[in-house]
């Protein structure tokens, strides 16, 4: 067995030798990903003195932060998954109106800054809140775990929704018909056939949510109050006491469960949900649900949707209101905050653009090597490309800060470190999009191209790249939005000259300038979407149809 493995490895070495360009690209890819992914991780983990790690259990403040993180992850994951399933089931399976609204609502939190819900929440329920003060006239401290739970649920349920909806969509309807045919009632078919088939998808959605909740920095920063979590505590150690060692200890404590969730997702869910998705697609309509059930679910979805719309609406309202809670008159004054921070806005867009293009190009190259060149090193490369997805943003930022503040590469305070950090943070997104694209392109297309006389390079240019245009561009778009709205990664990296919009917003929130924060957020998102819309207008390749 080991002898054949050895001979396989030898064959691969020979194969690579025959293609010197591939060998060079492969070496470069390994070097770059290793250098910018593995090294920063190693740096953070090895930075504190081993004895410092013991403090995690002795320092009651830290222990509390860890327990809080654990509690929030469990709570929010549970509620996110439940709501996501509710929405996914309603949209995928029920014949109800307003599905467009439901889809929109599940998209909104994904494309907006992660802390936007927290900000709106303050506007709605804070001391000067629209609901609490104006409607109900009571004063309540909303900072803490209740508020955070609600906010994280709304912020992160769309991630679970995307996964669960995909699985529900492709689940085998004819199997349910078979169950009905054998005498199962709707409820029995749901419990015995539908739910077991969806279980991997639901688990996958839950895991993705858990990873996001665990790594969340913006929401707890804004409304956590004294309820500190590992990411916020790490940030406070750094910003308050410049205690890098403690920040590293806390970040590492965050990394371990994140890596665990990530590995479970890759090894277990990744495999089992794959089978469900490749199942034969069915054009069968689902068996209609009982009217009572149907309209109950519809009502639930509708009320959640309205609430989410209110959350976003209040933000726009706040942007044009004089003094939230006291003076409700219309004003454009809040935009002054924005014009004062033009440099930050410009930085946000520039960094996001450069980092997302970089991530997409690197992701494409890695995906090509991993999927099309059968080389044993693939597994390592694949792992390196998706690894940043497992690393909480705060950890990655800290890693870059610690790694690139000294020779050989000294980047502290530069734009380069911001761009590189965002780029590698987005690499998994782009890489996964391109990987999925490669998987969808049937192997026979490439064989056909070779068969007609095209070499590897011609095939890549003429066949693969044109077909990958979609995933490539969607990777750029998602990365761009993520970068514009990112706070966690860059919070350890920005300097006076390289500060970005999200940092300014955080500053405004912390100083209680709700109007300014709202206005800034509205402007930032508007610019981001305007850039995206503009990029859609650029003709990447001419439409080849002449008919």
């Amino acid at each position, binding site marked *: 067995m080991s002898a054949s493995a050895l001979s396989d490895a030898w064959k691969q070495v020979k194969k690579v030798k025959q293609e010197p360009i591939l060998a060079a690209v492969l070496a470069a890819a390994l070097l770059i990903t290793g250098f910018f992914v593995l090294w920063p991780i190693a740096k953070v983990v090895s930075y504190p003195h081993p004895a410092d790690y013991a403090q995690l259990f002795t320092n009651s403040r830290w222990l509390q932060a860890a327990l809080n993180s654990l509690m929030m992850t469990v709570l929010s994951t549970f509620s996110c998954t439940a709501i996501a399933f509710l929405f996914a089931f309603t949209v995928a399976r029920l014949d109800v109106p307003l599905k467009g609204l439901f889809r929109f609502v599940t998209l909104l939190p994904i494309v907006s800054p992660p802390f936007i819900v927290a900000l709106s929440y303050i506007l709605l329920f804070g001391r000067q809140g629209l609901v609490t003060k104006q409607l109900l006239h009571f004063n309540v401290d909303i900072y803490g775990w209740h508020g955070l739970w609600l906010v994280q649920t709304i912020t992160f349920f769309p991630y679970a929704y995307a996964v669960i909806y995909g699985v529900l969509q492709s689940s085998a309807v004819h199997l349910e018909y078979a169950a009905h045919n054998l005498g199962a009632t709707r409820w029995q078919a749901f419990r015995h056939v539908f739910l077991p088939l969806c279980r991997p998808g639901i688990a996958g959605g839950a895991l993705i949510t858990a990873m996001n909740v665990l790594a969340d920095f913006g929401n707890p920063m804004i409304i956590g109050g004294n309820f500190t979590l590992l990411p916020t505590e790490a940030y406070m150690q750094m910003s308050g006491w410049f205690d890098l060692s403690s920040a590293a200890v806390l970040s590492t404590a965050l990394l371990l469960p994140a890596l665990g969730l990530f590995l479970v997702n890759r090894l277990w869910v990744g495999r089992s949900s794959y089978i469900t998705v490749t199942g034969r697609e069915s054009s069968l309509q689902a068996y209609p649900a009982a009217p009572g059930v149907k309209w109950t679910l519809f009502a639930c979805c509708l009320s959640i949707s309205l609430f989410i719309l209110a959350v976003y609406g209040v933000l726009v309202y706040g942007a044009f209101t004089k003094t939230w809670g006291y003076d409700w008159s219309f004003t454009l004054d809040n935009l002054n905050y924005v014009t004062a921070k033009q440099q930050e806005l410009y930085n946000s867009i520039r960094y996001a653009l450069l980092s997302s293009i970089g991530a997409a190009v690197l992701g494409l190259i890695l995906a090509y090597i991993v999927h099309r060149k059968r080389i044993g090193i693939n597994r390592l490369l694949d792992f390196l490309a998706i690894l940043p997805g497992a690393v909480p943003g705060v950890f990655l930022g800290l890693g870059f800060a610690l790694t690139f503040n000294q020779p050989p590469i000294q980047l502290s305070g530069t734009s380069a470190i911001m761009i590189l950090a965002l780029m590698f943070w987005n690499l998994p997104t782009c890489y996964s999009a391109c990987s999925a694209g490669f998987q969808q392109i049937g192997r026979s*297309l490439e064989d056909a*191209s070779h068969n007609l006389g095209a070499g590897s390079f011609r095939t890549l240019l*003429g066949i693969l790249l044109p077909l990958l245009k979609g995933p490539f561009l969607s990777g750029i778009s998602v990365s761009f939005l993520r970068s514009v709205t990112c706070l966690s990664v860059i919070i350890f990296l920005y300097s006076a000259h390289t500060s970005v919009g999200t940092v300014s917003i955080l500053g405004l929130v912390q100083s209680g300038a709700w109007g300014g924060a709202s206005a800034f957020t509205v402007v930032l998102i508007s610019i981001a979407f305007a850039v995206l819309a503009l990029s859609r207008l650029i003709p990447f390749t001419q439409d*080849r149809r002449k008919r």
Partner: protein
Amino acid sequence: MNPSQAHIQIEHVSKSFGSFAAIRNVSLDIPAGSFTTLLGPSGCGKTTLMRLIAGFNEPDSGIIRIDGRPVNGLPAFKRQTPLVFQDYALFPHMTVEENIAYGLKLQKASRNESRRKVDDMLGMFGLDGLGSRLPKELSGGQRQRVAFARALVTGQKILMMDEPLSNLDAKMRVEVRQELRELQRRTGITAVFVTHDQDEALSMSDRIAVFEQGSIRQAGTPWEIYFKPNDAFVASFVGTANFIRGQIAEIKGGDLIVRCEPSVIRIPSHGRHYVVGEEIAMVLRPECISIGADGEGGIEAVPCWSGEIQSSSFLGRMIRYEVRCGSATFLVDDADPSARGFLQGSVTLRLDPERIHVLPGSGRKE
């Protein structure tokens, strides 16, 4: 080129994927200008062999020659072995014209030449007016014709086809068979056709190679494969076969007297050497047995077995009966059902000794 010369030669080729031996020591000559079919059940290695010829995979051992030259190690894009893929593998982002012209473009054909050849192909395959469509805007049959046009446009002398008819409906499949055979005759190309459909193989091929578990069990003309199968696998995979096992009781002149269930039969030895006491297996096709109601008069010297009908299935042009004779069961076809109608109960089977085929080497196995 000398037409009798082998165009593609496979010599002792083996290929494994991990621990799975897909091809085991296969040798096969594919004559120039012939229509050669690789036939076998799924997973038998027929497609793997085709991929080895096209250069998508390299054999672990053995040599593949095209026009007498070894092509081992030659990359797929230099082999000039156009292939029609099972799923057609049309490039979804290119129009019909662009798909067909792709190979010409890679050969750096001039624009005019390319234009002319593509138009020729469009005309030849009845695709006029569809040149600027995308593959997704075509019907299954049209897609298939584009795939053929793309493979043929460069004018290579080889055309390989990987179950190209499997995505068509039954009626169209039969039509395309004839068109395809006609096209191959007209152009004189060497066609290599992979299928698991015995009807396709029998109706189109000059030569058939029957695969099982990575080996060729028999290569020969359709006639040989059907009536003179080498072994029980070939006999039962191609067409329906009745197997009769027996022991040679006596050799009289050129004939064998075989003791078998339910009675002794006398069959010609066709000059082959047998010894008394040898166990043999014989094959008899359902249509080579005639069936009649019990007691219907027969000719002397033709063995008559009486049996009981177990079941029957009406197939339109014939009725297939399952008849039990003692401990053996025979499948028998009545090719003219309208003459007699359904038979029931006890019947008499008549076997034509000339048409009983003794499987070579069958005795040594048992």
